[in-house]
């Protein structure tokens, strides 16, 4: 949506006032969106198919699905840009994305109206390049899985009636939420989770373009905290660099910065907590050696009151409970010496706690509950 509106607003406002929408204010996610489909990272299969269709200038209806932040929207935007060029882009592409304006009425009015128009081509483009500019328009429905069933049903006929002059591209996370008749009208493309290497190259490209120094551990932290979502990784990188740039004297981005922005509970706190509830963790030396204090952890499980005191402390620090559970989960499941029985018991507790937190339960009570029950499970297994 941004892409769609941005050129207009900036152009008009630039005439009146210079300092509106400076390039710095633009999110990097938008700034570094791939311009061509070749630039899209690690989706070889999809890109190969689309390249073919670019050559023959014909396109089926398409359905892109896959986890967030691996380039679905970027691909279709880049593709339509390559098909139509900057001049025709605005008249030929309609992008609709959030959940609030796609009720059935919008499908009936806005989409239908747009689908109905016969495209007019401007053959000569302003930047001198020639674009294929095939005789159809593209309607991109981003986050299509949040469309209501009714709205999707209303689309069915529209897709067929105007197939001659309009192509639809549905983008979604969960393909199962798209009703069957719609899915069968589209050719499906699955977007694989991003490989860490390609995410890494992309991040370092951006870092070089923005001329910010970026160390290897920071890149790794960015990727691990964002869990394969490149958009999140880039947003974190931007926020972190913002902080690093404005700090006096200028500092480089540290692992701690990234973790703080992502809301991750620091390892030291986690290890402490795990120690109190009886999950021994071997201490790794922190990346910059600062976070980890040298005291050896008291491996022996302590009593209820210690756990409660620790939980109080964590809650006072303001860490989010769901994040804490997530990290605790990783710690327990990947733990080298715990018995499987203890691990499964812990998993049960964590699942219950997650459900409770989703229902809006009190965080302190549930962290305590998880702590005590994990502690019991672990000490029973010894």
């Amino acid at each position, binding site marked *: *949506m*941004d892409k769609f*509106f941005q050129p207009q*607003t900036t152009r008009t*406002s630039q005439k009146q*006032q210079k*300092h*509106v*929408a*400076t390039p*710095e*204010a633009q*999110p990097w996610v938008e700034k570094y969106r791939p311009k061509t489909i070749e630039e899209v990272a690690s989706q070889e299969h999809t890109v190969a198919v689309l390249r073919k269709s670019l050559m023959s200038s014909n396109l089926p209806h398409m359905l892109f699905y896959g986890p967030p932040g691996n380039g679905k929207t970027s691909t279709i935007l880049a593709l339509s840009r390559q098909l139509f060029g900057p001049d025709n882009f605005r008249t030929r592409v309609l992008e609709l*994305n*959030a*959940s*609030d304006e796609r009720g059935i009425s919008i499908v009936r009015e806005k989409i239908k109206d747009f689908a109905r128009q016969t495209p007019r081509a401007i053959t000569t483009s302003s930047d001198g390049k020639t674009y294929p500019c095939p005789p159809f328009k593209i309607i991109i429905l981003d986050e299509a899985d*949040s469309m209501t069933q009714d709205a999707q049903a209303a689309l069915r006929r529209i897709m067929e009636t105007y197939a001659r002059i309009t192509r639809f591209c549905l983008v979604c996370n969960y393909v199962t939420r798209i009703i069957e008749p719609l899915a069968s009208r589209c050719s499906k493309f699955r977007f694989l989770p991003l490989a860490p290497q390609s995410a890494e190259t992309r991040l370092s490209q951006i870092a070089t373009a923005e001329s910010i120094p970026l160390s290897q551990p920071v890149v790794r932290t960015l990727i691990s905290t964002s869990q394969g979502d490149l*958009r*999140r990784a880039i*947003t*974190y990188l931007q*926020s972190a660099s*913002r*902080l690093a*740039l*404005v*700090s*006096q004297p200028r500092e480089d981005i540290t692992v701690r910065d990234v973790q*703080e*922005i*992502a*809301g991750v509970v620091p390892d030291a706190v986690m290890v402490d907590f795990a120690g109190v509830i009886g999950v021994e963790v071997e201490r790794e030396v922190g990346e910059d050696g600062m976070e980890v204090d040298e005291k050896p952890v008291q491996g022996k499980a302590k*009593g*209820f*009151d210690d756990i*409660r005191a620790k939980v109080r402390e964590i*809650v*006072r*620090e*303001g*860490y*989010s*409970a*769901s994040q804490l559970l997530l990290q605790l989960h990783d710690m327990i499941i990947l733990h080298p010496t715990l018995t499987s029985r203890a691990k499964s018991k812990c998993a049960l507790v964590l699942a219950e706690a997650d459900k*409770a*937190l989703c*229902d*809006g*339960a*009190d*965080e*302190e*009570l*549930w962290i*305590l*509950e998880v702590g*005590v*029950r994990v502690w*019991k499970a672990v000490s029973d297994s010894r």
Partner: protein
Amino acid sequence: MSLWVDKYRPKTLDDLHYHEGLSTRLKSLADSPDFPHMLFYGPSGAGKKTRIGCTLRALFGQGVEKLKIDQRVFLTPSKRKLDLNVVSSNYHTEITPSEVGNYDRVVIQEILKEIAQTQQVDMNAKQRFKVVVLNDADSLSRDAQAALRRTMEKYMTNIRIILCANSTSKLIAPIKSRCLLVRVAAPTFQEMKTVLEHVAKKEKFDLPETASHSIIEDSNGNMRKALLVFEALKMQSTDLSGPLTIAKPDWETYCYKVADMILQEQTPQRVMDVRAKLYELLSHCIPPTVVLKTIADRIVQNVDEALKADIMHWAAIYEVRMRNGNKKIFHLEAWVVKVMSLYKHFFYDIDMTGFDDC
């Protein structure tokens, strides 16, 4: 005369007493050309609001302190009228969307769009954008958050949003990834002491060590509570010497009484008595979660080690049920009975395994 909490609330980022690292960051962010959307989170009384106020002041100068309060009326699609208090200055607007409960989406859409679509008219303003502060962001409904998401991207040139929440658990990921997360931890013992001493110095009297200790112990990291208690104590005895008794709030002593009642006797008659007391508490608008937590806290202080974990376990379980359910009192009572039976069985040493899961 205003309360000390307000009187000595820091006005600028330089005046803040603790979290210096955070303050310098906020200051440089306010000076830099791109100010992001922000999300402040942390326990209550840690100073989130104060920091937001200081940041606004750093962004726009003194103008933000000229506040006016409006009552706005909104119309839902189903033609229901909603009233909402809006605090605003020329540069920012502050709303608490949870005031209107389920209809917060309407408010978010209307207010934000209205503000976002107009540009800053004051040509002397330091920034070209306006700021909207949303309090209590963690009680925003899903719909409202989804609506926010779109607005945050689209109107980035005209508007910045500052969210203020207790925890980030209840915010959807897209919102979190669009904001700069700022964690405001509760102040430590030493930090609170500095603040108290600062206030004492401004009020021109000496603060004895023992007094500040007991105030801080009592406040449990809540700066606002500490200052209020401090002022109350000062009213009681002017020199703050001798043994101080920090008056507990009524409901807290009442909760303690209930806890003691549960432990003294476990009979159906006692359940009825407790029930009456619980009703009393609820009818005075004490949130049921707070009641449950306070009683549970008190009980685990006075029981055997083996029982503590179980009592907290059931407290956690019944708390969730209470949230999902409709009648709070049912679940409170159920928990009380559960605790009583646990306690009694523990003493008579009856095997409980058959009754464990209900």
